[in-house]
């Protein structure tokens, strides 16, 4: 690492160090039921990992997240493009899409619970519902911003419907779709935890719930810490994906 890089990253590391120190001190000063110092959180986390509990729960959650998210992408992206191309359909559906995008989907969880019970499918549905609308909404938004002239030029060069899609629609909407993907990653994560809290308790959600019910504050902190790190990692990934595809947006 060069000196310049060290100097550039120094404030970040100092800030992280100060935060950890603050956590440690606050944890030591307050009662163990209230807050647990950083060191104990790590110890507790290590216990959870070595007991194998954590790994199993992690893969449970990952399976749920991926299934719901991929489904949302598979439905949201093509449907969004279709809406973009067929104007009559888009004009008709747009306000409802906006409504659903702005509706807090958590409110549907009790209905899903009483209709579909406690299996895997209802939880996938929750993750799907949380993440499909950002994808759909942004894809439509992107397609709406395609200049009509571009399609007219393509048409006047007698391009076929297929090549119109491949050469104009797809490249143009892709950056917007990726904005949707970034938003959807965050929402899918919330959906995953919500599903694990309120439907059948599994995965990382169950890890927290269990710890909280046992008044195991260390376990709660350890789970929140890990889920927070996963959230940061996924958000970064989403930003990277978005930036990668945003290059030809301008």
């Amino acid at each position: 690492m060069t000196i310049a890089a060290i100097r550039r990253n120094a404030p970040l590391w100092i800030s992280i160090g100060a935060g950890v120190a603050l956590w440690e001190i606050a944890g030591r000063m307050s009662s163990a039921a209230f807050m647990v110092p950083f060191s104990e959180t790590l110890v507790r986390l290590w216990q959870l990992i070595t007991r194998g509990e954590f790994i199993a729960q992690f893969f449970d959650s990952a399976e749920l997240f991926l299934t719901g998210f991929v489904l949302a992408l598979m439905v949201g992206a093509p449907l969004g493009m279709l809406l973009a191309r067929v104007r009559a359909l888009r004009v008709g559906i747009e306000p409802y899409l906006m409504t659903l995008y702005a509706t807090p989907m958590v409110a549907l969880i009790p209905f899903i619970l009483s209709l579909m019970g406690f299996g895997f499918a209802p939880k996938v549905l929750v993750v799907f519902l949380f993440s499909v609308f950002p994808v759909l909404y942004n894809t439509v938004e992107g397609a709406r911003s395609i200049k009509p002239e571009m399609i007219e030029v393509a048409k006047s060069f007698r391009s076929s419907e297929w090549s119109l899609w491949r050469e104009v629609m797809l490249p143009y909407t892709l950056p917007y779709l990726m904005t949707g993907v970034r938003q959807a990653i965050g929402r899918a994560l919330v959906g995953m935890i919500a599903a694990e809290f309120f439907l059948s308790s599994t995965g990382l959600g169950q890890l927290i719930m269990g710890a909280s019910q046992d008044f195991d504050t260390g376990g709660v902190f350890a789970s929140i810490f890990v889920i927070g790190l996963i959230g940061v990692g996924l958000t970064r990934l989403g930003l990277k994906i978005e930036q990668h595809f945003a290059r030809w947006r301008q």
Partner: protein
Amino acid sequence: MSQAAIATPAPAVRKVPVLMRGALVPRLITGLSILLVWEIVVRAFAPAYVAKPSTVLLAIPTVITDPAFLQALGATVAAVAEGLAITIVAGTAIGLLMGRSTTVDRMIRVYINGFNAMPMIIVLPLFSLWFGYSGAARIGTIIFAAIFAITMNVADGARSVPREYLEVARSFRSGRWRMLIDIVLPSSMPYLLAGFRLAAGRALIGAVVAEFFLSIGGLGYYILYNSRAYHHNEAFVGVLLLAAFGVSFELLVNWCTRRFMPWYRRDEKTS
């Protein structure tokens, strides 16, 4: 002579019925067909208690006159309003500091980003330990869910204040504090509004999730309770109301931006 040509009337303006010109008709048709499909599917395949448009419609008058519902509505609205008020004040203050001071920004950026990336509802078990199963835990969740969106947006806004504004203010010997209030804050208003839109949506989710989790009175708990009692129609009225809140926040922000900040152009709308 070409008299006839002159007499020829100008090509008639294509007459489009008023209703067809706008988007109203396709929208109405889509809306009605969605409702129709929903009604038919539920009638054909689902048990009788499942919400369908006709029964939800019938349930609306009884629900909105039900004191229990009004109380639940009031509790949630009050909590969201209180949480958002705290969020706006605190979030804006922190955001302004972050945007205008590199030291503060370097100190707390990693935490703001980190907390913002967390799925907000994981703090619920912790808050229930800290605050008990009470309204305080709900307010805490609302604030935690909403504040980082505002802070990040205001910080972005404060950072993007045109340099000339600040230079002019400085050459008129304006103090730091005055500059923050009179120049930086108004200039980052559009960002604040964009942050508010995000924050309001998250605050609603936070309130509903907190009520599910903590079983405290409110719209979320009303939905949970009624759907458990197989009163799906009544519960669905609650969902409709939540959707209405979500949409009206969205519309309110759009309207405010257009009405009070005509100088600010939303990025994609310029073409």
